[in-house]
């Protein structure tokens, strides 16, 4: 039966059909829907505090013979990079499939890093689907490859794959049934002390060199024979744009883009008068292909920025580098009317604070009418960056610095920032504002350890943020609700800034969009008890 599914839904469907043991990850656009969908259709899925922990849990599943799907947005893989580079050396009987959802064009991200580089750097196979059907098939293939070569596999998606809906046929694609979970000790393959890691690195390279001939002979490569005068090498969503822009061209579409099927590429290029690599983002494929002496054209550098589309592909092929028309600016997003964050940013603006911000809905505090955010780097950075500014600025300015982050972001990577603050306090002290709206709002109201509810909204252990911060050694910890008393809140922030002490103020009020659902979850959970 054929379904109309988004790429995210197709990955979830494949994971479910393959009998995935556990899906885990941290919400991040455009990846968030994968685990929500997996749970919805009956699979086991859970949110981790952050991507690093998610990957570690996934590694444990694979070590025990299970199948794990670990999902995150591109920047999430930066957080998970530490375990990634070492697990690549290791030997797991189960499957470890890592979904990296990249965001070329930065629809909702702080950078447009190209995570294909991670697959190369860590030395793991990578598959790039070009529509939902392939998202389904490649998830299955990834599980198969992971178990056959006992190697983690990256499924590299992009916004247009994750969030586009296309037809998916779930019939006729399958993987061997999952193994029974059992622990078989394998110290040389699982304990990465140098003596074991040195041979393990060699083993990883051997695995990759075995995967190359497989990719050459039976990899998910597609060749479309067309004109000899123009050939195009492409992958992922770019393939669709290419097919529409130049239906007459010969096309080599790569499904597994690491390790590359170099001989297949060489054979494809040889008879062509002109061959150009059309890829979104970094010149990854073109550099790899040129490095082995195959003559291919690169896209002009202006097309490295942003997403590709049919029109831009036509321009690439025509070598048209004239300036592109700037799109008419749309209406920017804003904090909802009545959003509890609004009171906070009004106060920070009134107090002329230097605001070290973070990633979440409250990032919108940078926009008018608040204009109350001075820096945003990455998840959890508000605290460390704020401390660095406090250490450096003259006292009068240092006293104006506050760090602002949300509840989910605090759990994700703010806790170590508090540890740093307690350990290396600036002479002027510091003020951290945690905007606790009871949900991971920006990515679509996901639960986290601070809500005390699991991915499917059932009651579980709850991290009480104020208790945790007190336990870390911060003495001034206050929980307030600024909305009914904006003046009192402003006064509290002002007084905290004047003191050369460490203060954490938690502004607690449920996100307006989530409040109704949160009440229902709480009611259901009470009834269950």
């Amino acid at each position, binding site marked *: 039966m054929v379904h109309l599914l988004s790429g995210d839904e197709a990955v979830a469907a494949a994971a479910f059909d393959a009998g995935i043991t556990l899906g885990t990850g941290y919400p991040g656009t455009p990846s968030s829907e994968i685990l929500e969908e997996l749970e919805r259709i009956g699979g086991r899925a859970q949110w981790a505090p952050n991507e690093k922990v998610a990957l570690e849990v996934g590694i444990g599943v694979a070590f025990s013979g299970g199948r794990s799907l670990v999902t995150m947005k591109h920047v999430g893989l930066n957080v998970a990079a530490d375990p990634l580079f070492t697990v690549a050396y290791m030997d797991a009987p189960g499957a470890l499939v890592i979904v990296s959802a990249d965001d070329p064009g930065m629809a*909702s991200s702080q950078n447009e890093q190209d995570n294909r580089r991670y697959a190369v750097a860590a030395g793991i196979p990578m598959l790039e689907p070009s529509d939902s059907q392939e998202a389904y098939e490649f998830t299955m293939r990834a599980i198969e490859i992971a178990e056959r070569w006992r190697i983690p596999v990256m499924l590299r998606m992009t916004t247009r794959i994750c969030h*586009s*809906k296309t*037809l998916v046929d779930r019939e006729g694609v399958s993987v061997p049934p999952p193994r029974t979970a059992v622990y078989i000790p394998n110290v040389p393959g699982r304990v990465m002390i140098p003596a074991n890691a040195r041979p393990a690195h060699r083993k990883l390279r051997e695995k990759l060199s075995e995967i190359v001939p497989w990719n050459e002979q039976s990899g998910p490569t597609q060749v479309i024979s067309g004109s000899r005068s123009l050939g195009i090498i492409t992958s992922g969503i770019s393939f*669709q744009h290419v097919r529409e822009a130049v239906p007459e061209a010969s096309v080599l579409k790569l499904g597994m883009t690491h390790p590359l099927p170099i001989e297949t590429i060489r054979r494809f290029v040889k008879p062509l008068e002109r061959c150009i690599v059309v890829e979104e983002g970094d010149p990854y494929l073109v550099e790899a292909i040129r490095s082995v002496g195959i003559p291919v054209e690169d896209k002009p550098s202006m097309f490295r920025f942003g997403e590709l589309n049919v029109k831009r592909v036509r321009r690439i092929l025509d070598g048209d580098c004239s300036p592109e028309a700037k799109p008419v600016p749309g209406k*920017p997003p804003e904090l909802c009317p009545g959003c509890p964050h609004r009171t906070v940013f009004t106060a920070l603006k009134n107090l002329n604070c230097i605001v070290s911000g973070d990633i979440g809905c409250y990032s919108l505090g940078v926009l008018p009418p608040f204009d109350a955010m001075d820096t945003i780097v990455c998840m959890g950075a508000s605290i460390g960056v704020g401390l660095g500014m406090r250490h450096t600025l003259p006292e009068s300015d240092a006293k104006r610095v506050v760090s602002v982050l949300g509840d989910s972001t605090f759990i994700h990577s703010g806790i170590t920032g508090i540890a740093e603050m307690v350990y290396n306090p600036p002479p002027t002290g510091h003020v951290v504002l945690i905007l606790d709206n009871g949900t991971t709002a920006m990515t679509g109201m996901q639960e986290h350890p601070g809500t005390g509810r699991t991915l499917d909204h059932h009651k579980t252990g709850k991290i009480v943020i104020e208790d945790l911060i007190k336990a870390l050694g911060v003495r001034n910890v206050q929980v307030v609700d600024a909305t009914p008393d904006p003046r009192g809140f402003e006064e509290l922030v002002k007084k905290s800034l004047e003191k050369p002490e460490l203060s954490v103020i938690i502004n607690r009020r449920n996100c307006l969009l989530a409040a109704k659902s949160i009440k229902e979850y709480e009611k259901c959970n009470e009834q269950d008890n």
Partner: protein
Amino acid sequence: MNKITNVVIAGLGGQGVLKASDIVADVAFGAGLDVKKSEVHGMSQRGGSVSSDVRFGEHVFSPMVPEGEADFLVVLAPDQIEVNSAMLGSDGVLIEPSQVDASKLRNKKSTNVALSACSVDTSSLPTRIGLWQSSAIYPKRFMKRMLKRSMLARAVL
């Protein structure tokens, strides 16, 4: 010939742009056509500009409607017409909020459904009214309400 119908639905976060595009895509899917639907959500959920592309025909490649190639541009917020007007093809049809008398809709929030229904019903899609009810995704009651609205929308056009 592989003729693709391109529909772009645009508006502001919270207006139901994505729901409307889901419905159009489902109707085309129900008619047995190849369908691709593309959208960018995330930041746009917070009241900002949102748009979604639906393409259907014998075989669709890119999920994104190329600029200047939309057969139908459905705009739910008057101030979003200018933002999206470059999407419309030279023979394309603009369907805008003023074309539906919102006071005649039982629920004002259903403007998204009413306007999108205009685009589907007047396009080359071999649609039968029954298709609106054939979608498995939406509960029957919802489909019935939507059907009424789509007929209403045509009546007021």
